[in-house]
């Protein structure tokens, strides 16, 4: 069974074009039914939203008159995620294959590599890989640095940067695949999704695997390629096991959901099974919270981060998230005040859906998940004694 990370040892760095072709064969030319193949494969985006890739491609192709744009999203703005960088530094040709397949299938005249500006190794690897490609392919491509801000990784922010030189998220509708760069339909796809496409073009079906980043209280944090029947416990074991007993797992990054560790271990990392429980793999980060760290304090810290990452384009997000973060911090640092708990509920409801983009919604869902999963911890939190460092 093919895997994304199959091939040479990852520690050896990027797989060159020759080796890539030797291992997998040359890049197939996508036939007119390739989008149908993609649709039938059921491939979902790996950027966090799990949107059906085939549907996006179908939509862009339908409105494309040869001026469509493909944006390869390697921004990886989620602080704990490493998978996109790993893919870019070790299997760049999988990503480029996927990008050029997309460009042909949706009849795009431009491919933009949107790579996080701090991800130097990934940037260099993609640049070296690009240099190995054909002239025709290289002519299509330009590389653009994604600013190192959380919201800059969002599709609309990527489009906005390429289109207008500023990576602030925009209101949708219209979404990128309807109207994007220069008003043309734009396909924004995560690098992992495109890597899957490169394999689907050769084998007819996706690998059935996902890349996840196991982070936090584990002995060997890092990226794993797992199958849908892999459980969270399996993934944590593969990452060296917990460094200390854990009570909480955050699945899917900062816009993800909290799970009590006891319930989390047996959970299979299968999209549908997770969906049925109101969970999602999101951007693939499995965050194991060490038992010595307090959930309430962690949630407050992450809320402060998300509030500070607001693009300040609308009041509900900028002021709302700040108020929520402050209330969380008051609970974390001073102990629970029932008024603050009420405020968290009230303000969450007032912020949801009122933002110009989905940043505040993600933050509110994160907070709600924490409040629903750890109600006793939030209801009875007491201020900790000062910890050194």
């Amino acid at each position, binding site marked *: 069974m093919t895997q994304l990370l199959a091939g040479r040892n990852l520690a050896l760095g990027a797989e060159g074009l020759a080796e890539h072709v030797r291992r997998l064969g040359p890049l197939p030319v996508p036939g007119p039914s390739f989008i149908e193949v993609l649709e039938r494969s059921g491939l979902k985006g790996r950027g966090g939203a799990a949107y059906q890739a085939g549907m996006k491609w179908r939509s862009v192709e339908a409105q494309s008159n040869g001026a469509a744009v493909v944006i390869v999203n390697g921004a990886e703005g989620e602080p704990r995620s490493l998978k996109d960088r790993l893919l870019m530094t070790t299997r760049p040709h999988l990503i480029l294959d996927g990008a050029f397949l997309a460009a042909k299938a949706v009849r795009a005249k431009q491919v933009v590599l949107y790579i996080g500006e701090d991800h130097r190794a990934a940037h260099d690897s993609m640049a070296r890989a690009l240099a190995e490609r054909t002239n025709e392919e290289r002519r299509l491509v330009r590389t653009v640095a994604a600013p190192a801000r959380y919201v800059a990784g969002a599709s609309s922010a990527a489009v906005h940067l390429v289109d207008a030189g500023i990576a602030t998220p925009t209101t949708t509708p219209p979404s990128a695949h309807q109207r994007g760069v220069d008003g043309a339909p734009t396909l924004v796809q995560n690098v992992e999704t495109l890597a899957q496409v490169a394999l689907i073009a050769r084998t007819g079906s996706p690998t059935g695997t996902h890349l996840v980043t196991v982070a936090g209280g584990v002995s060997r944090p890092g990226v794993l390629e797992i199958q849908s029947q892999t459980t969270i416990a399996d993934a944590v074991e593969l990452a060296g096991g917990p460094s200390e007993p854990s009570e909480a797992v955050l699945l899917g990054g900062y816009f993800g959901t909290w799970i009590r560790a006891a319930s989390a271990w047996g959970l299979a990392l299968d999209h549908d099974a997770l969906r049925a429980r109101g969970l999602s793999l999101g951007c693939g980060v499995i965050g194991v919270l*060490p038992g010595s760290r307090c*959930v309430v304090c962690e949630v407050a810290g992450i809320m*402060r981060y998300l509030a500070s990452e607001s693009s300040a384009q609308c009041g509900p997000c900028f*002021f709302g998230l700040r108020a929520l973060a402050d209330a969380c911090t008051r609970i974390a640092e001073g102990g629970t005040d029932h008024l603050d708990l009420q405020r968290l509920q009230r303000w969450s409801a007032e912020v949801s859906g009122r933002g110009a983009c989905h940043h505040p919604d993600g933050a509110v869902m994160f907070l709600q998940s924490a409040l629903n999963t750890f109600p006793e911890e939030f209801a009875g939190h007491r201020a900790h004694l000062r910890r050194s460092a």
Partner: protein
Amino acid sequence: MDSNTQDRIQARDAAFRLLNRLTTGAAVAALASVGVLGAVSASTIPGTTTSQTASTTTSASTSTSTSSASSSGLGSSTTPVKSSSSGSGVVVSGGS
């Protein structure tokens, strides 16, 4: 509760007390002015006595004690949010 929060709560309380004092002061000044201006108006009409100028009208209570909760509860914080990029407890001690 940190000193920041405490300061803000105290500042809010102080502002409320100021509002009440200003309102009361305005009421007292207004009442007094009715008397003073009444007396002044009396003295500008030639021929009238100014003996009964003290206002004996009962003062109406104007304390409205509006407990104005801040508009929608959002944005009451004025301290800048400290940006902590490693805000998560999920510490990455190394990548692969």
